[in-house]
């Protein structure tokens, strides 16, 4: 095992996780309750409590490359039972968002499935279950995914072959476009607000701490 | 028989039982009645009630503590009596209260304004009421003014035109013109900016000459010669002539009257510099009424609000830090 240089902690990373999640990571005293309750623990490379410890130690690469952050089911058992009232699931989510931004592949199958879902919404305005499953199979090459389920579903009319396209799908697509173009980036919004003299909103946010 | 005549009869009737009955007589100036102390039945003939009976006779009562005295009161004066009683500053069995219905009293300052230069108020030779009008006799003939234009502000918001808790009440009771005091005067002042409000006081108080007429006219100011304004121990005030000390005396006065001021307005009326000092007291009265549903001189069943407390104060919303 590697020796970890504690003095090499990435303080910016710690701060960013704290800001994005709004959680004070120093509150974690490593009782392990999150690990104890996590239903997905068996799919992880690191149990949640160790992930929390890695964040505390500022191990950015290790955290953002961890399988754990992709396999979390967001059931929030950890957050609900944390004796220090840390929203652990929120911390994991913040790490996942950061991993996406950093262009990490994550767990390929999981990320592909989610990407397919997002794309489906982008295209149709709603999620089209059959379509996104098809896209997932196509991209992962897992053509046998859930084919056993088809005979159970098709005759019951539970699979809509064609997507439900909503009238406002262009409006939805616009939301995605603006998002990709950075319209919702915090800095951009903040400076626009300042330009519009919405000082009330800016003032509320110029202070330190997490929203 | 007019109300005035009836009152004269009642005063005479009361006399053997009390050492003196306090009321009003015609003053040296036609618009201003003067206090009258009726000690013999003959004195009662000088008694005058009505539009010019402005001053509050309750102010004399604490001096008579220990002997029985009669007092003729308007509705507002009766509230002062009520508050003095509530605080134990006079004793109920030592005072005979004679009440009558009051239609409002004159504000002499308003007369000067209403005359609008038609004549110098000092030249007025006589004055009388005629229905809704005030008729002034001047060297250049009679001048008629509408009473609504020259009646005191406090009368416009009067809720108790009939003396409360009177031993003898002469005349028919009147309906109050309004159903609640909305403190519109305070609200209007507080609608000004903070800066303007302080400008206002700075300007007004600069006229103060520290004569303490406001205090002397106040029926609730029972400290008299022991007033802290004149004391070195404690030394709340210096002898400075600055606006700051003058203002601070008004703050002392208002704070000592918090929960006690009945709003009779004598402080303001007595002020030779015409500084509207009642406003501060009314700001506090409004708060006391909001918080404790207490109106001095009216809701006197329990102890005064600032001499008591409740374990839970439902109306007090403390700041949540």
């Amino acid at each position, binding site marked *: 095992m590697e020796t970890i240089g504690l003095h090499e902690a990435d303080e910016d990373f710690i701060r960013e996780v704290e800001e994005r999640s709004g959680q004070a990571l120093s509150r974690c005293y490593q009782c392990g309750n999150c690990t104890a309750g996590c239903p997905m623990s068996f799919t992880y490379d690191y149990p949640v409590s160790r992930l929390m410890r890695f964040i505390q130690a500022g191990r950015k690469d290790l955290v953002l490359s961890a399988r754990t952050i992709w396999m979390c089911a967001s059931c929030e058992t950890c957050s609900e039972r944390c004796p220090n009232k840390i929203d652990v699931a929120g911390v994991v989510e913040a790490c996942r968002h950061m991993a996406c931004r950093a262009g990490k592949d994550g767990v390929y199958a999981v990320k592909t499935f989610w990407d397919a879902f997002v794309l489906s919404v982008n295209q149709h305005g709603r999620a089209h279950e059959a379509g996104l499953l098809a896209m997932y199979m196509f991209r992962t090459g897992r053509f046998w995914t859930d084919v056993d389920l088809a005979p159970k579903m098709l005759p019951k009319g539970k699979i809509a072959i064609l997507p439900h396209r909503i009238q406002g799908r262009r409006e939805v697509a616009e939301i995605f476009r603006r998002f990709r173009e950075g319209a919702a980036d915090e800095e951009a919004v903040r400076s626009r607000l300042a330009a519009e003299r919405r000082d009330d909103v800016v003032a509320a946010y110029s202070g330190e701490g997490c929203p | 028989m007019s109300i005035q005549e009836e009152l004269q009869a009642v005063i005479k009737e009361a006399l053997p039982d009390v050492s003196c009955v306090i009321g009003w007589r015609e003053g040296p100036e036609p618009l201003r009645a003067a206090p009258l102390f009726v000690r013999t039945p003959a004195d009662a003939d000088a008694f005058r009630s009505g539009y010019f009976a402005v001053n509050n006779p309750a102010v004399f009562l604490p001096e008579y503590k220990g002997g029985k005295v009669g007092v003729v009161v308007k509705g507002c004066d009766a509230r002062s009596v009520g508050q003095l009683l509530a605080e134990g500053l006079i004793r109920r069995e030592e005072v005979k209260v004679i009440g009558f219905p009051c239609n409002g009293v004159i504000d002499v300052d308003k007369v000067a304004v209403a005359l609008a230069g038609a004549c110098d108020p000092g030249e007025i030779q006589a004055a009388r009421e005629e229905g809704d009008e005030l008729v002034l006799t001047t060297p250049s003939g009679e001048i008629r003014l509408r009473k609504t234009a020259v009646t005191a502000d406090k009368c416009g918001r009067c809720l108790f035109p009939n003396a409360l808790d009177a031993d003898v009440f002469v005349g028919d009771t009147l309906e109050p013109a309004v159903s609640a005091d909305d403190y519109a005067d305070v609200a209007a*002042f507080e609608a000004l900016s903070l800066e303007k409000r302080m400008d206002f*006081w700075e300007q007004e108080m600069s006229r103060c000459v520290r004569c303490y007429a406001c205090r002397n006219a106040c029926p609730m100011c029972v400290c008299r010669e022991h007033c802290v304004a004149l004391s070195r121990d404690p030394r709340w005030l210096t002898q400075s002539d600055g606006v700051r*000390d003058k*203002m601070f005396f008004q*703050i002392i006065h208002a704070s000592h009257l*918090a929960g006690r001021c009945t709003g009779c307005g004598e402080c303001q009326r007595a002020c030779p510099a015409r500084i509207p000092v009642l406003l501060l007291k009314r700001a506090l009265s409004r708060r006391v009424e909001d918080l404790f549903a207490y109106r001095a001189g009216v809701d006197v069943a329990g102890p005064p609000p600032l001499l008591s407390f409740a374990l839970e104060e439902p109306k007090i919303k403390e700041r949540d830090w």
Partner: protein
Amino acid sequence: MSVLKGQELRIIGFLCNWCSYGGADTAGIGRFVQPTDLRVVRVPCSGRINPLFIMKALLYGADGVLVSGCHPRDCHYAEGNFYARRRLEVIKALLPALGIDPRRFEYTWVSASEGRRWQHVVESFTMQIHDLGPARRLPDAPELDVLKMVAAE
């Protein structure tokens, strides 16, 4: 000597000896860093505080006044803070009528164990006063200074 120009404002605190003064001590013992503006006047009980002390301070040069006592029901003298609560609440109504921003005066309850709370109260109140800026002063009589000079000689 004065408040540090551009850095501090004049803030006066009236604290009861048993709870809030102790709470401020507890904050000190805990090294809970606070703004330095506040100057504390120790009184035995919040019930000792004549509301006129507050008015005096505000009229004669304080930019803010903070009063703190024991929590209701916890008064060392059983009832003092109950009286204080009424008096302080009522006197607050005088400030807007004088043209003084009512936020320049606050009162609260801090127990001897609540060092953190005290720190929070001092921080928030100091920030509040700094947001309001220096208070306007009513002028004193110019002659007084002359008198003072005479007296000094």
